[in-house]
């Protein structure tokens, strides 16, 4: 069952088209990675999916009861002021602001849900900690937790491991994988191609000339993806394995 259906989507700024007639589908439980070189419209696509910019043409359809404001969004961290005074709890709770239109204060069930999610992503002990004093990996978990509070089923991450050291990145990817297995649908923009291929079920490649959308396996066997080496490709006669042996 498709959760998100994008059909012939065209996006851009001030008349300049950046994303042209893009088509892809995300099913419930998928892990879609959006990869591609700089300037091919990855972040523009994210903004389009979130409704932060108006689309020129095409359709973005959500189903299974979610709407645009129910995407749990984890943006690029450099847009948040480093010295911003805020506790972890204050930030996590702000994820709930989409769920109740007229609610001015957080409800008890929201607070319980927040506690559960903080436990889940491993920041329960940091509840009253100061955001700006946390490590990069911890900060990213806090923002992920906020995204989960906002999300019903779908989270959208824009280069979530930028600025993290390799260990923190691996930790973060591990957590994402687990959440995905528990049923959270993930769309992730990444420039870490190998990491993305290892984790995702589907790949959307945005290129200057051509784009590709399909399963990760299909991507690896496409002309665009052939050059990429990974471990554990499921087919025996596959070029990747041979490359690895060599």
């Amino acid at each position, binding site marked *: 069952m498709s959760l998100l259906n994008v059909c012939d989507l065209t996006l851009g700024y001030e008349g300049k088209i950046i994303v042209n007639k893009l088509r892809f589908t995300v099913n419930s439980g998928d892990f879609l990675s959006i990869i591609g070189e700089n300037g091919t419209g990855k972040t523009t696509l994210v903004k389009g999916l979130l409704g932060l910019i108006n689309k020129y043409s095409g359709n973005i359809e959500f189903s299974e009861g979610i709407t645009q404001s129910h995407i749990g969004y984890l943006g690029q961290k450099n847009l*948040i002021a480093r010295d911003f005074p805020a506790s972890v709890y204050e930030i996590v709770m702000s994820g709930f602001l*989409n769920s109740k239109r007229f609610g001015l204060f957080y409800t008890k069930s929201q607070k319980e849900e927040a506690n559960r999610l903080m436990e889940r992503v491993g920041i329960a002990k940091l509840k009253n900690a*100061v955001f700006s004093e946390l490590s990069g990996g911890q900060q990213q978990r806090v923002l992920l937790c906020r995204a989960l509070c906002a999300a019903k089923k779908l989270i959208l991450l824009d280069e979530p491991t930028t600025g993290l050291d390799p260990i923190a990145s691996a930790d973060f990817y591990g957590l994402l994988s687990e959440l995905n297995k528990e049923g959270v649908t993930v769309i992730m923009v990444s420039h870490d191609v190998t990491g993305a291929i290892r984790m995702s079920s589907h790949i959307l490649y945005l290129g200057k000339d051509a784009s590709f959308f399909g399963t990760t396996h299909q991507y690896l066997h496409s002309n665009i993806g052939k050059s990429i080496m990974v471990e554990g490709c499921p087919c025996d006669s596959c070029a990747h394995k041979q490359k690895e042996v060599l």
Partner: protein
Amino acid sequence: MDIFSYSFMVNALIVGVLIAICCALLGVVLVLKRYSMIGDGLSHVGFGALSVAAVLNLSAPLYIALPVVILAAYFLLRITEKGKVNADAAIALISSSALAIGVFVASINGTNIDLQQYMFGSILAVSKGDIIISAVLTFCVLVIFVLFYNKIFAVTFDENFARATGIRTSVYNITVSVLTAITIVVGMRMLGTLLISALVIFPALTSMRICKRFKSVVISSVIVSVACVIAGLFTSYYFENVPVGATIVIYNLGVFLLYTAVSLLIKVTKKK
């Protein structure tokens, strides 16, 4: 105390405390959103508008200055939001132009306007009408901050995320800048064109030295702001000829240095 036997002092205290509350609350948002210079720009536009209104002999210069400054607030916000033009340069241009127009117009028409009073403020400039305006304004600011506290936090912390969750962030930005415009026009005649922006920026910046959570920054800012205004008013009352605006800013500077020293002390003891 005999200070309360002078009605102008009572008026100044009431307006001062109310404006201090507004400045502190709005200041937290402005400073954290990197809009600190908007306050400065607006006070200069307010000066220009007040001078022109006074020269034209309009009976109520405040009612000319208010809409002009609100309009200016809207444009300054748009400039800053779009980030296309160099925002800080644009604000500097607008504020110096407005200041120049104000001084020029006032000088051409002879010196029947007290430029000094506009620049550096005066307790005597506070009228009964100011009390009503600042009371209504403070009521609005407080109601908005209490009712929409969580959304204000979300928009200030991460505007993109807030927009993605469906909050109409431009409404919040416009509300904040309009309220700032009114606060500045009302406050600038007491504190002075050149000094009112300090009241917006100082309390938030001071509080951020020690307070590391949004709620504590908001509460501390209000306390610092009100305390400095009251202390400034009393000081300028007991030492005659001391301008109230400058005194309040000096108090703010003192508290800022104190907070900075304390935060350094905390850092040192934590390391041990």
